[in-house]
């Protein structure tokens, strides 16, 4: 009895010691994983200390871009932009209805919701480079396989972002529309779509940026865009040309970022 009262009079935070043990366990676990991963990737600091001089010459080469190479990059640059535009448009057109099916707020059928979410998770878990490598084999080298890989990649991102926005939206208007006798598609079109439209547009801009960056990567396996060029110059160690390509991507992304932040301010 007396012990019970002393416990009660103590400051009311009995969770503290348990919390400490838990975070200690978490720290140990994280350290163990880090060590395991460190052995896996063969962390080798000595190599860096030994060879850092090698990098300086490359960095110097990179700081002197070969501007004469610019005309040769134009076709790839244009192709990158074309791929990004087409993939964003096609990807978003496919994603919008899928996003409505993947949100708890707009899809009342649990089995359909679970099915769509599962397929979407699957698509999202495949790296875009895997899609690209397979599609290059299926439809051949060039922009078409790149666009298709980007479309799949975009569907994964847009559906996730939009369905999460939908999850957070108020379903009141939708219920009102349904109560007034609207069909499900009409209720969504009238009540839910306007709510998510501003964030949808800003997510599209974000996806477009990602596509520009991704096209540098998927080109490595032959899927068109600046990546093919990167692969060519890197295998011949032409760092002056590589740095020009990097600079082009950099400028492209920075310009897009400023345009999209301006648009976001105007529209959202």
């Amino acid at each position, binding site marked *: 009895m007396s012990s019970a009262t002393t416990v009660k009079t103590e400051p009311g935070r009995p969770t503290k010691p348990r919390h400490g043990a838990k975070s200690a366990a978490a720290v140990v676990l994280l350290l163990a994983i880090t060590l395991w991963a460190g052995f896996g*990737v063969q962390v080798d600091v000595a190599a860096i200390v030994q060879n850092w001089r090698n990098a300086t010459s490359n960095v110097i080469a990179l700081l002197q871009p070969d501007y004469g190479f610019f005309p040769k990059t134009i076709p790839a640059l*244009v192709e990158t932009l*074309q791929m990004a535009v*087409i993939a964003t448009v096609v990807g978003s057109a496919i994603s919008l209805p899928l996003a409505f099916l993947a949100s708890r*707020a707009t899809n009342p059928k649990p089995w359909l919701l679970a099915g769509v979410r599962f397929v979407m998770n699957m698509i999202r878990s495949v790296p875009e480079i*895997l899609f690209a490598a397979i599609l290059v084999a299926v439809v051949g080298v060039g922009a*078409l396989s790149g666009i298709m890989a980007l479309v799949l990649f975009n569907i994964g991102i847009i559906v996730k972002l939009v369905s999460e926005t939908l999850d957070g939206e108020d379903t009141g208007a939708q219920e009102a529309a349904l109560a007034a006798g609207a069909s499900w598609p009409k209720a969504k079109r009238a009540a839910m779509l306007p709510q998510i439209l501003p964030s949808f547009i800003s997510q599209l801009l974000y996806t477009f940026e990602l596509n520009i960056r991704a096209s540098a990567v998927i080109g490595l396996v032959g899927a068109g865009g600046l990546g093919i060029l*990167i692969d060519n110059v890197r295998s011949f160690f032409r760092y002056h040309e590589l740095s020009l390509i990097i600079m082009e991507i950099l400028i492209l992304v920075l310009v897009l970022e400023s345009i999209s932040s301006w648009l976001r301010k105007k529209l959202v």
Partner: protein
Amino acid sequence: MATVIDEKQGTSRPVKPTTKLRTTLWLVVSLIVVAAFWSVKIQWSALADFPAQLFKYISAMLLPPDWSKFSEAFGATILSVQMAWIGTVLGIVISLPLSFLASKSLAPQVVTAPLRLLFAVIRAVPEVVIAILILSVTGLTPFTGALALAVGSIGTLGKWGYEAFESVDAGPKEAVRSTGGGTLALIRWGVWPSAAPEVFSFWLYRFEINVRASAILGLIGAGGIGKMLQDNVQFRNWDAVGMLLIVVVVLTMCIDQISGAVRNKLIHGTWRAPKLAS
């Protein structure tokens, strides 16, 4: 008719200029889209063969996958995950102090401006390119891949970090300042406690990104999924590619589930996602 009146009552801002801007934007965007479709060099007729071709390749990959390659695929995927983990940890260790220094509320503009530019530049450069640069120092090992991912992570984590630190509620910060706390005390007691859950969730998110990005680094020789992918696509061992695909999908989905649960625990206090209020 009714909806038009509703809209006008609902919004108090002037409607006209916005619609003008929107119409121009729509026109410009449509023009760009049409131009892109028009000018891109693609044989659209190839699309007609696509379903049949896809079926052919999918059956080559998955009917059945090459089970003898399971251990190789599993090992390659684990190596990619390890690369992603080390890259994320290094990225966190480096980016955390940098993002404090890049917060406008904690550091002078002389420090914040160059750091923000650095983050922006890193974010614009694809990880493959970073890896190509690092390659000359470390040679072609998985460690190169991890370093490239670490550098890439600094770009995003640094940005998300300073944004989180800047949006922290002013109350606790004023409290620390008013009791005479210095900048370190301000960070420890005024900023970090409120921003921590958000920052933890960024770390997890970046780890998920790195798991996918590590696949790419294998292509230039850093090992892992990318290397196995390239080797097998080159020699058209489709059933091995199918095996790799299965392992990647299953493992990535597991990681996403775990990190989603951890994220919920850190933010909401429960392992499962909170139910929607409906």
